[in-house]
Structure formats: C-alpha cells, structure tokens
C-alpha cells in the first residue's frame, strides 16, 4: 500500500504548481498511471481524498487514465506495439525498449480561477 505515499507526492506536486495561480480552486487532477508502474489506480483513488484533506487540493476530483505497456522492438523494427511482457508480440525478440506503461504522470489540472468563480 504505497499509494498513500504516491497520493501525497502527487498532491505536493499539484500544490507547488498552484503557486502560479493565486486563489485558484482545483476542480480536477488528472493522472496517467502505467499498468506496470506498480500502482493500483483503485487504491490511489481511495487514498486521494484522505491525503488531500487540509491541502489546497482538498475537494478536487481525481481522474486516472491507465496507460498500457507499449514496446519498441529493435529486431523487427515495427512501430511501437502494446504488449503484456518485455518480448515483442510480433517477432518474439527480447531486444526491446519500453516506450510507455511504467510511468506515473501528473498530466493536467482543471482550475477555477478567482475571476471564473463568480461566472
């Protein structure tokens, strides 16, 4: 259960970005979670409201996009493909690099700025 640590890190990162938008309220926090990042999105959703209590992020919704594992094969040199192992699903070669599927990224924020609040 390290999702609580991850939720706290994500909230710190959001808070740091908020410094540029004084008085803004966070409506939505968007994360992308690679399926091999070692993070369980459901556990992260569970921890997020708890971790955001008392922070500028409190009350924000969390939207998680799951990113599949995508690999680039250096043997058959096909375009990057989705795979469920570190082996090229097309030619079976282990000579691959991971393009995506392991990362954990804060992709965007939806903010209500003070002048939008009254609208």
């Amino acid at each position, binding site marked *: 259960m*390290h999702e609580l640590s991850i939720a706290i890190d994500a909230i710190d990162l959001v808070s740091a970005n908020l410094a540029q938008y004084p008085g803004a309220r966070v409506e939505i926090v968007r994360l992308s979670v690679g399926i091999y990042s070692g993070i369980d999105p459901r556990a992260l959703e569970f921890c997020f409201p708890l971790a955001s209590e008392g922070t500028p992020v409190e009350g924000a919704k969390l939207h998680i996009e799951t990113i599949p594992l995508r690999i680039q094969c250096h043997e058959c040199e096909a375009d990057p493909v989705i795979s469920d*192992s570190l082996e090229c699903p097309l030619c079976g070669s282990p000579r691959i690099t991971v393009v995506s599927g392991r990362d954990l990224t804060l992709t965007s*924020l939806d903010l209500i700025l003070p002048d939008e609040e009254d609208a």
Partner: protein
Amino acid sequence: MTRVSLKSKIMEKNDRLAEVNRAKFKDEGILCINMIGSPGSGKTTLLEAAFRQINDKYNCAVIEGDVKTDNDMRRIEKAGVRALQIQTDGSCHLNAGQIGNMLSRLPISSIDLLIIENVGNLICPVSYDLGEEYRMIVVSVTEGEDKPLKYPSAFMSADMTIITKIDLAPYVDVGPEKLIANALSINPNLKIVSTSAKTGEGMDRFLKLLMNPEGVFDAKRSG
C-alpha cells in the same frame, strides 16, 4: 474553467535523489544491487551464505530495510559484513532519500559491493528507484511457480532473479523450471540463478553473478 497541462512525473523527487546516489556509486566504483522480495523469501539468508565465501576478497556493505527491528542488520554483521538498518516504522518500501542519508555513514570510497535489502514486499519497492545499478528479485520455491505472473511489475523491472530454497521444491510440489519459464515469459532478459543457501546448491553461480553481473565487475572497478 482553466486547464493547465503539466506532464510532470510524480516520482520526480525520488528519481532525482536516485540519480544523485547513482552518480555517487559510479564515482566511487561501487556496484549497488537493490534486492526485492516477499517477506521470508530468504534474502538475508542468501546474503549470509554469500558473505561467508566472499567477504575476505571484497569490501561489502549492506543497507537493511525493515518496518521494525534491526535483526537483519545484526545477522549481516555476524556474517562479518558492515551493515546499516533503516526502520521504516510502517512504510512498505525504501526511497532514494533514505539511501542517500545512509551513504554518509558508510566509508564509500572503500566499498566494492553495496547490497540494499529492501523491505519484504513484491509490490511497493518496485516503484522506487534507489539509484542501484542492478535490481534483483528474490523468490522462493515455496511461494509458488506463478509468482512472476501474479507480480509482473517486479519481474519486469528487474535485471536478475534469484530462486531460493530449491531444496524444498519436492516437498511443496513446485517445479523450479516452471518458475523460471514464468519469469522469462514476463522478462526474457532476466539472469536467473536457482539456489539453496542450506545445501549450497547454486551458490557458486549466485556468487559469480554477484561479482560479475555483466562480465565487467572485478573487484574495485574505478581502480
């Protein structure tokens, strides 16, 4: 509503500290291995057996991670190797900052091999780069041959896998060869060694891997 696009890595802070550690290991010619495995998989026992054979030839050190107690640190010290203990007090993994703090307490310029024995857990430590050069997954036959399929992220992120307790395989109806095949189906680049710290089987190969993961590690690499 205003959308702010960020694309920031959430592990950024840990990853930055991990790079600081990695640079330090490189400068000092230290081979650093991050050892990850379930509680009771035999990580400490494997190290004890290995150190009995190599600690007169190489300068080794261990950073132990556990939720509570310094039992493992004391076991490693008893095997004649310098050890430090991190007690996480509930946290399920080590992070790069904790390792950085520990490095100031080690005579790093004289260390050849640094093993970080992570908190017993096959999930959480996987997300935290500690700055290691190699990641080792330790899995015992008693955990079942489908462990790599159940915990693919761990095996996917690793460079090597050590199978332990193979002397017990006949008693638990587990085929080590199936365990190996499952690990390779997730990550075909894994270097895999089967061991029994009890009977000594496979320990020679394990030591070879430890001393020479890519055929380049021969004592102090930076001279």
